[in-house]
């Protein structure tokens, strides 16, 4: 019974996180400016990382933890690179 | 000792990370210690300015204060997003600061940005003024005095 409740809670939170990823993707696709898109990407990978952690709880495997760590590392580097590009890549549009 | 391990805290953190990622076994303790010693030496070529950190109760109090503030401002920002009050207006504030140590400023930047509702934008090293963006700006002087009294005093105690 409690196992079923926990399964329900985890599935519900996965749906919520999926919706959050949808919101972030909307902001990434719509803009209106380049920094809004980068912000959307930043939120997207963070939420994706959290979603993987809930999969880890669901299956009880630590494999998902390592995937989440790699996503956090690569996402940080990617966003920093994009931010730097916005500063340096184009001086005046 | 100082020449063998130039950055003891960094070496310890690397060692702890290695053990957390691989699990505790004699082989990994040896390997992790080796990695921590060698990798922490690469910082030597950067020649960082030695930080003066005073370890004491001020650190614990700062950590507790920041945790409580993060929880409180999370609630506040969530309420703003859900209700979206029309009379809310965001704005920039200028915070004159007495902090000079780059480490203290870095910690203050982390604190201000990590609490939802306030965002560190820029630090003017000549005028010693920090530009902060606030989501729900009611009273500018209140924000300035709050940040100065809550965080800056403790940071001064720790770093300077």
């Amino acid at each position, binding site marked *: 019974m*409690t*196992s*079923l*409740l*926990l399964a329900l*809670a985890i599935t519900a*939170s996965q749906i*919520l*996180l999926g*919706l*959050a*990823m*949808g*919101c972030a993707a909307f*902001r990434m696709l719509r803009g209106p*400016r380049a*920094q*809004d898109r980068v*912000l959307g990407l*930043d*939120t997207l990978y*963070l*939420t994706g*990382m*959290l979603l993987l*952690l*809930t999969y880890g*709880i*669901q299956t009880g495997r630590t494999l998902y*933890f390592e995937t*989440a760590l790699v996503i*956090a*590392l690569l996402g940080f580097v990617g*966003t920093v690179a994009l*931010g*730097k590009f*916005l*500063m340096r890549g184009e001086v*005046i549009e | 000792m100082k020449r063998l391990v130039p950055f003891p805290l960094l070496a310890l953190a690397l060692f702890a*990370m290695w053990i*957390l*990622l691989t699990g505790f076994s004699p082989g990994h303790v040896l390997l992790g210690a080796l990695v921590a010693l060698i990798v922490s030496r690469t910082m030597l070529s950067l020649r960082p300015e030695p930080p003066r950190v005073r370890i004491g109760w001020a650190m614990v109090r700062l950590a507790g204060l920041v945790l409580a503030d*993060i929880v409180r401002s*999370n609630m506040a920002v*969530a309420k703003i*997003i859900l209700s979206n009050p029309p009379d809310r207006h*965001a704005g*920039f504030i200028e915070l004159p600061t007495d902090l000079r140590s780059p480490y203290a400023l870095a910690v203050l*930047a*982390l604190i201000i*940005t*990590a*609490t*939802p*509702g306030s*965002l560190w*934008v*820029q630090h003017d090293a000549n005028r010693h003024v920090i530009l902060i*963006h606030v*989501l729900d700006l009611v009273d500018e002087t209140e924000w300035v005095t709050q940040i100065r009294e809550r965080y800056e005093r403790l940071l001064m105690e720790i770093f300077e």
Partner: protein
Amino acid sequence: MMQAPDLPTWAAIIVGLLVLGGAALTLVGALGLIRLPGFYARVHATTLGATAGMAAILLGSMLCFSIIQTRPVVHEILIALFVTLTTPVTLILLARAAIYRDRSEKASRVSSDGGAEREE
């Protein structure tokens, strides 16, 4: 895919509440990305999922794995430490890029010192 690990009742309730609460808070933050006007306001919304949302889900994961493996599992702290250190860095960098772009745009129209206050 409805499955869950077998936990004692008290732990199942705590883990469920933590994960659900963290996910809900992250969703509110992401909603802020859509609802709030202007770039500088939206930056604040991202912090919601990156601080409290992340902390709640990681705490739930730590509790769950500690009980399954019957020993304290703390490697989730690595992710928490890493995210709390890196998210402010990326946000500050983005805000600085945005303010730089706003100022250079404004300077091309009118020469001013650039308060850079744009809400669209």
